[in-house]
């Protein structure tokens, strides 16, 4: 069921790996020394795989995501996407932020078209693609609305449409539903899975919600803090599409308990390996 991670694994990542972290270390300077956000992290994410990452605050989950996004560079080790070293951000890797990060002066359509305007697409094709992405997240009736008139859930759906519009191969989501109420969160989880099932992409999804982590993923990566590292990787042997029935099933509860236990009852750093 679970795989103990061998961080010194000399074998290169799996052949089908879309994203590979190889012995990634990332430190940040701080008063009186250095803070190790990530300590020798190795992880492979398969093509079209949905992986969630959970862990206590300060375990470096956001840093992991920013490394894949190209917003942060590793201190040592390497981050590969499609076998190529990540050098800066790029449109083939879409990022969805917790704070939505919509451009408030643009309408929903304007936001979704932002990335498309950076491509060489013709105007009508651009419009069609934007329309499609807006439709995908169910915001068609609000295409001309400004973000300030949208609810939190709608804002995040708009951000998802913006990321999907440029048709990225990888979606990196940094606690995207963290600021939403529990009901909206459950709805958006189902919508996200629905969107994902129709347009399968490799997804790395950061969360601090154990239920969310298990419900969405095929594999849950549990991280530990000080220094940030991968504690365990837990497979979720539940079929897609995931349903409410599944969410309430004993199998779900069992995996959820396992993840919960490994998040909240971690053995200290020294004895983990």
């Amino acid at each position: 069921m679970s795989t103990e991670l061998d961080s010194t694994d000399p074998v290169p990542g799996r052949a089908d790996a879309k994203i590979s972290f190889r012995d990634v270390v990332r430190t940040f300077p701080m008063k009186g020394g250095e803070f190790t956000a990530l300590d020798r992290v190795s992880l492979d994410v398969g093509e079209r795989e949905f992986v969630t990452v959970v862990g206590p605050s300060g375990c470096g989950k956001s840093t992991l995501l920013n490394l894949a996004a190209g917003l942060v560079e590793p201190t040592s080790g390497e981050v590969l996407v499609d076998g190529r070293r990540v050098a800066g951000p790029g449109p083939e890797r879409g990022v969805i932020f917790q704070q939505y990060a919509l451009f408030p002066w643009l309408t929903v359509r304007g936001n979704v078209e932002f990335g498309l305007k950076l491509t060489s697409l013709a105007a009508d094709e651009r419009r069609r693609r934007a329309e499609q992405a807006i439709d995908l997240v169910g915001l068609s009736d609000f295409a001309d609305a400004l973000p300030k008139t949208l609810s939190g859930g709608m804002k995040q759906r708009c951000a998802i449409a913006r990321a999907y519009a440029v048709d990225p191969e990888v979606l990196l989501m940094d606690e995207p539903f963290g600021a939403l109420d529990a009901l909206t969160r459950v709805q958006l989880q189902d919508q996200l899975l629905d969107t994902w099932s129709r347009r399968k992409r490799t997804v790395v999804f950061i969360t601090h919600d154990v239920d969310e982590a298990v419900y969405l993923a095929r594999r849950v990566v549990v991280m530990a803090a000080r220094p940030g590292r991968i504690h365990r990787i837990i497979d979720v042997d539940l079929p897609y599409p995931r349903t409410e029935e599944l969410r309430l099933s004993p199998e779900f509860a069992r995996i959820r308990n396992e993840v919960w236990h490994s998040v909240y009852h971690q053995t200290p750093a020294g004895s983990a390996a």
Partner: protein
Amino acid sequence: MAVITAPDKTPTTSTPRRTRRGVPTLLLNLIALVVGVAAWALVASAQLADVPGPLSVSSRALDLIEDGTLAQDALASLRRVFLGFALGTLLAVPVGFLMGWYPLARGLLEPYVQFFRTIPPLAIIPLAIVLMGIGETPKVFVIFLAAFLSCVVAAFQGVVGVDSTLINAARVLGAPDRVIFLKVVIPAATPFLLVGMRIGLGSAWATVVAAELIAADKGLGYEMTHAQTYYDIPTIFVGLITIGVIGLVMDRLLLLAERRLTGWQERR
């Protein structure tokens, strides 16, 4: 006189603002105006000082409007303000954005901006007159300086304050620096910039009148100094009220532009 209260209506709402008990704000403004003028009339009629009443001031205003002096003076002052303000803003926007975007530009320029900001533009007038003569140039220059200094700081703060997640959101969509600057930083900084422009226009207007008090052959400030030598108090009152009304109208126009341009902001 109703001109003063009219622009006070919030342009975003079609119905007049109401206080808690339901009296329209506009009505309250009118009442305040009437009470104010009545109090003024009372003070004037008490003869405590040589204060002219509202009647003699408005008849003087009518005289000055009829013979064209008021319009000519107001236009002369406005011309100086707009010229100085336009030049100041035009320079402030690129300089402020440059300072906000490039740490190098910031390091080189900020000491000067901060230093000159502490000198009231009016204090530059004696120097400006000595160096540039008593023509239009020193006045426009001083106004330019006043507008530039308020505006440059606002533009700079606007760029520095742009939410970094917005910049990251554009970067991960593949936007190069040029696009980020044009499509993210400039729109995000616009609200700050417009506030800076309002402050700049206010200080430009205050500066022009003072500059004309010192040396000019026409303009509202000149007319008032001129009236002072003839002990013509009603004319001084007309000048003061005109300055106030024009200043208020300009401020409200910019506020209107600000609301239109930055209506996308979430107001808390």
